[in-house]
């Protein structure tokens, strides 16, 4: 009976989503059933787990200024969950999603996390994008002992029992990139520019220390733009006056588009000026326009153009789900990892209990990630590689450099 059952499940799975199943083949040892895991045993903390289902939350901004960035993450997380369900779910339980809107408003993120954890008793939450939203939600997760998978590359300086950070922390994204540009472009002078909030400021702090102490370079200017400011004339002139070898940029949101368009218009295109940015993914390119970026570099752990089996499948799946025109950026991919990592955690723990899952996950090696091999570090961040992408007119990046596997270090000594 069970075998038959298993056979059906598998065929259904394969028929439905061969690719996803192939991924699953790598991800789960073998097909499993709710029957093997009585709810009472796998859920001792009163989470929303039944014999057939388990509830999770997705918490991003569907409205407000941040919707621009967070939509991709929502799509990726839903895709991953759909694929997992196609494979029979987790411990034989189908995943039910409760989506909440953070509305680009940090307090709302706190309120919604509270709702997801205390009312809906979700087993895990995939969400938050800006540091501010995470900072707002974090105390809630710690108090209610929830489990959050956070997709964005961020400033680090944080490590919580209740959070797994599937994006890169600052040092992973910054150091290797700077090393490369210094070596590749013989860069000596750097101009640091970012939007005026914690992530760029912390990143620039680390960058400056690295440039001055390890690269023997010189920072000739450091500039922060008010969020949402769209006028760069003066800033650009300052840069022209300083003539840096490299502009190191972390401008975000609406400003980002204005920044590149005006930079180009002022004659500072890739032919004349080297720029390495840590805030431009394929998503941003949609707004900026390939022609304005052509030849500039981004330091990310993932680019859509990445060539490997996993990624080809992932991109195909994503486009199938959300249309040919859709693009995939670094954060979108990191968000896609969240559900898979949670699945692994639960299955390794054999339980949905947060405490058990949390200890089970570190050390896990995810070989099937679109970005390639990643490993969960005890400090809840991922060991991952850094890539340098050179932007092309068509809005895709050509990967020109790939680092080795980088150890995450949220509290870097000597960089604080």
């Amino acid at each position, binding site marked *: 009976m069970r075998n038959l059952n298993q056979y059906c499940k598998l065929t259904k799975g394969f028929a439905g989503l061969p690719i996803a199943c192939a991924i699953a083949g790598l991800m789960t040892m073998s097909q499993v059933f709710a029957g093997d895991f009585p709810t009472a045993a796998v859920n001792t903390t009163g989470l929303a787990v039944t014999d057939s289902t388990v509830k999770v939350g997705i918490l991003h901004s569907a409205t407000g200024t941040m919707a*621009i960035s967070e939509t991709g993450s929502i799509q990726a997380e839903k895709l991953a969950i759909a694929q997992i369900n196609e494979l029979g779910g987790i411990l034989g339980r189908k995943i039910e999603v409760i989506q909440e809107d953070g509305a680009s408003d940090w307090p709302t993120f706190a309120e919604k996390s509270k709702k997801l954890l205390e009312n809906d008793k979700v087993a895990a939450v995939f969400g938050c994008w800006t540091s501010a939203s995470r900072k707002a939600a974090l105390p809630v997760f710690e108090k209610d002992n929830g489990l959050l998978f956070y997709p964005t590359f961020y400033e680090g300086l944080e490590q919580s029992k209740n959070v797994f950070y599937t994006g890169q922390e600052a040092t992973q994204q910054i150091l290797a990139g700077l090393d490369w540009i210094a070596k590749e472009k013989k860069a000596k002078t750097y101009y640091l520019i970012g939007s005026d909030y914690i992530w760029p400021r912390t990143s620039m702090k680390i960058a400056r220390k690295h440039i001055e102490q390890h690269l023997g370079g010189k920072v000739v200017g450091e500039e922060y733009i008010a969020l949402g*400011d769209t006028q760069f004339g003066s800033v650009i002139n300052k840069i*022209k006056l300083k003539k840096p070898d490299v502009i190191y940029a972390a401008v975000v949101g*609406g400003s980002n588009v204005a920044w590149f368009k005006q930079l180009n218009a002022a004659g500072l295109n890739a032919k004349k000026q080297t720029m390495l940015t840590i805030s431009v993914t394929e998503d941003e390119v949609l707004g900026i326009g390939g022609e*304005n970026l052509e030849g500039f570099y981004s330091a990310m752990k993932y680019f859509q153009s990445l060539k490997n089996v996993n990624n080809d499948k992932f991109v195909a799946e994503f486009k199938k789900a959300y249309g040919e025109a859709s693009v995939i950026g670094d954060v979108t991919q990191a968000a896609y990892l969240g559900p898979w990592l949670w699945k692994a955690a639960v299955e390794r723990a054999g339980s949905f209990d947060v405490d058990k899952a949390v200890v089970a996950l570190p050390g896990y090696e995810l070989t099937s990630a679109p970005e390639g091999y990643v490993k969960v570090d005890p400090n809840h961040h991922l060991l991952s590689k850094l890539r340098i992408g050179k932007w092309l007119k068509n809005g895709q990046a050509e990967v020109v450099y790939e680092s080795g596997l980088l150890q995450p270090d949220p509290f870097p000594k000597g960089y604080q």
Partner: protein
Amino acid sequence: MFGYTVEEVGNIMVMQGFSGLSLFSVLLLMALGLAIIFGQMGVINMAHGEFMTVGAYTTVFLSKLAVEYDIVKSYFVFAIIAAFIIAFVLGYLIEYMMIRHLYKRPLDTLLATWGLSLVMQQVFRSTFGAKEVSAELPEWLLGSFQPTEGIDIPINGVFVMALALIVTVSVYLYMFRSRGGLRVRATMQNRVMAGAVGINTKQVDRVTFALGCGIAGVAGAAFTTIASTGPTTGSLYIVDSFMVVVFGGAASLMGTIASAFGIAQAQSILQFFMTSSMGKVATLMTIVIILMMRPEGLFAAKVRK
């Protein structure tokens, strides 16, 4: 001086002067529509930014078509005209459905139009998606030209300037040299009297409001060359626009121009010597303080009460 050659400093000053001017024309384009709506009609249109976004999306949409039919070179001019027409019509409808009921309650127009802006933002989001988009720009709008080595003059900047000039002049001609403008001014100064001499004041209101929105649309279209287009783009502009208009002394077109110029110069210079965000704070602060000392704005005439 400061380790730079005189020539370098010279070049920077030239370009700095230019970026001041282009910021001036940006602010002017933003504010003109509002100067008409707020200045002449006393309507506080918080959705002004969204009307600009309408223009921007129109341009983006047309650029997609232009790419298909391979007329990228020339479409932009049509895009601007289209942006004007669409924003104008939209404004006309809004005035008819909403604004005209609120003339007696200026503070309420503020709330209602704020609500309108929320709705419009969501409409953009649902129709064009939450992500930012960019218009395919013709080659002749990209890059910069160099009168001499070391000086780059952004072409899109020049373009925006030219447009600002054209719009300003035509607004001036309309308001002060045409029958239409005469009717507008008459109505705004003395509604009853204007009505008595046979001016259809309702019609005038509608056209004036629509005109303001249309100009906002043009501004939005122009800004696709220098900034981003997204559902919430409009909210980036609204406060600046109001600052310019109020600072200039709501009722006067000259005032708007002057204050746009003053603010632009102040901001671009401050942002050159301070960090960008502090520069912005300093500018706003100055405006507020001046407004506190001279509430009626720069250019309001002293009248006999």
